[in-house]
């Protein structure tokens, strides 16, 4: 990697860091702005209030409070929960849920990508056939209809009308109860990936280097999987961004619907009972994840295709 690549990576890192700082500042302000403090008791005298403020460091200037707050965040200390589990540390509440949400998201991503790629290839190879139409219709449906609508419809069909799968998540059979949410979540991934792979595949198959490989008499499946697929998967990174956003927002509602004990349902619960520290903690985790993935995508871009870097650098 040359010097300009490093410069580009440095720039993206800087922007991500600034973004995270802005997010932390907003979160900090929110905690301060929230209506009502734990010390609203009317029986407290001024002197007692002053003592409490001093004990919690609230008498210090705002910037100093912000630095302390930052320090606590880096230590993983998000304060205590007010409502969901009184006086429990938010970190303890959040930690066991990260794995469940992550598993669901990665599972949906994996499932969706594989099916999407296969569907895209089949559609590209048999243009205007049944599979092509099927892929197109599925792409339009998956892109336009929200995943929670799919999830609810699947629940009604597979959980209520023909009860083959559990409606609610149960920890005794985590795999079986993850099927419906995973299918619902992966539909948007399938739609995005299939649409993209199809378009890219058609273009690559018409290119001269594929014609050359075919002219040399290479086996058809090898042409597709070894030569064409590789080249059409590099730009698939462009759809990663929207896919991640879809998965994050989608999983929040779906976790609530299927009562999966993940980060999303925790956030929804926290919103309902206005448990500010939990809201802040989960929002911050979501932000880190989002900013991190966007950073990764940008850097990958820059390395794979230097022209993008140039375009972005100029504007």
């Amino acid at each position: 990697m040359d010097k300009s690549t490093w410069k580009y990576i440095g720039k993206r890192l800087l922007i991500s860091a600034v973004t995270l700082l802005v997010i932390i500042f907003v979160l900090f302000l929110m905690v301060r702005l929230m209506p009502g403090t734990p010390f609203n008791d009317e029986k407290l005298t001024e002197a007692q209030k002053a003592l409490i403020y001093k004990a919690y460091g609230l008498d210090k200037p705002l910037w100093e409070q912000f630095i302390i707050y930052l320090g606590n965040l880096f230590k993983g200390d998000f304060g205590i929960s007010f409502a969901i589990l009184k006086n429990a540390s938010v970190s303890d509440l959040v930690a066991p849920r990260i794995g469940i949400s992550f598993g669901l998201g990665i599972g949906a991503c994996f499932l969706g990508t594989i099916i999407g790629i296969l569907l895209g290839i089949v559609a590209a190879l048999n243009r205007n056939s049944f599979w092509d139409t099927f892929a197109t219709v599925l792409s339009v449906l998956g892109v336009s209809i929200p995943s929670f609508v799919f999830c609810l419809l699947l629940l009604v069909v597979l959980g209520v009308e023909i009860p083959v799968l559990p409606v609610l998540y149960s920890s005794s059979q985590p795999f079986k109860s993850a099927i419906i949410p995973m299918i619902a979540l992966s539909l948007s991934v399938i739609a995005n990936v299939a649409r993209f792979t199809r378009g890219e595949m058609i273009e690559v198959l018409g290119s001269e280097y594929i014609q050359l490989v075919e002219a040399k008499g290479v086996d058809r499946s090898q042409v597709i999987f070894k030569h064409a697929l590789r080249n059409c998967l590099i730009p698939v990174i462009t759809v990663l961004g929207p896919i991640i956003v879809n998965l994050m927002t989608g999983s929040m509602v779906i976790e609530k619907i299927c009562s999966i004990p993940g980060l999303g349902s925790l956030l929804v619960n926290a919103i309902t009972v206005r448990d500010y520290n939990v809201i802040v903690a989960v929002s911050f985790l979501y932000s880190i994840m989002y900013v991190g993935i966007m950073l990764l995508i940008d850097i990958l871009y820059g390395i794979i295709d230097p022209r993008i870097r140039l375009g972005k650098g100029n504007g």
Partner: protein
Amino acid sequence: MSYLVKNQADLDQYLENYHVLDQDYELIDIPERLETEKAQPASSFMKDVWTRFIANKGAIIGAVIILLFIVLSLVVPMVSKFDPNAVSTAQQSMGPRVPLLESIGLFNGKTGIVQYEGEFANMYHYFGTDTLGRDLWVRVWSGCQISLFVAATAVVVNVCIGIVYGMISGYFGGIVDSVMQRFQEIVNSIPTLVVLTLLLIVMSPGLWSIIVALIITSWIGMARITRAQVLQIKEREFILASKTLGASGFFIIFKKILPNIFGQIIIMAMFAIPNAIFYEAFLSMVGLGIPQPQASLGSLINDGFKSILVTPFQTIIPCVVLGILMLSFNLLADGLRDAFDPKMKEG
């Protein structure tokens, strides 16, 4: 036989000696009647767009459904004899019942909890009633009205902000552009989900705070597209001509550049509407939506979901309406994109 032409004198000599003979030429394909080329009527850009749009079946279907939904959502709450907010505990969770369909066994009203018997024997709740006995047919369409209103308002304001921001940033360039771009980049890298949640917790949930939150989170896409378009167009000759004639920056931006990026803006707006509808529904699902007794499609789904095991129709109906609405907007937007810019057509 060939001549070697060395100079002008040689050429003159050659041409003088050259005589056309009959066998040099052969007449082929003698036209009986000379046909002058028919002048193609010049078709304007908008006419081309219209022709391409009309040819797109999906887009037409989408447009028709959207129109139908708009009409229904405006007319039904006005003409129906049921009040969308009138609670009637005697009519809790009645199943959907439609006059003609009931005779073939669909929508016969038997899926609900309270049956159509006694005083309700001749009553028709097309979409049934909810757990508080409110008529869902009226509620779904007034909910659709609110969803559409939220989305349309948010998108119109977004387009305005996005156009102004994008055009200023793109046209003036330099430091102005850099600063505006950095700001945009930072705002853009905060996840929408987090911004929406935080904003609505600080503001109390309501129709207008949802619209404001949607505006704050989604003007950036519009600004980015506008800027990219402006950058492309401002290097063209007609802008140079305008500048040479002494036109002011303001005049060039609004009179010369804006009309040229209008197509792109319409396409963007059309894609933004289903997005706004989605985020509104999403907010309702996480409990930050329109407060009761008002309803949006999202809050209807959220309410119906609470009794999904007993009366699934209360969830399915608003779900299907929401799905069809978003699908139609996407089809329309796809069609418009292909019509305005056939080069971008996929596959």
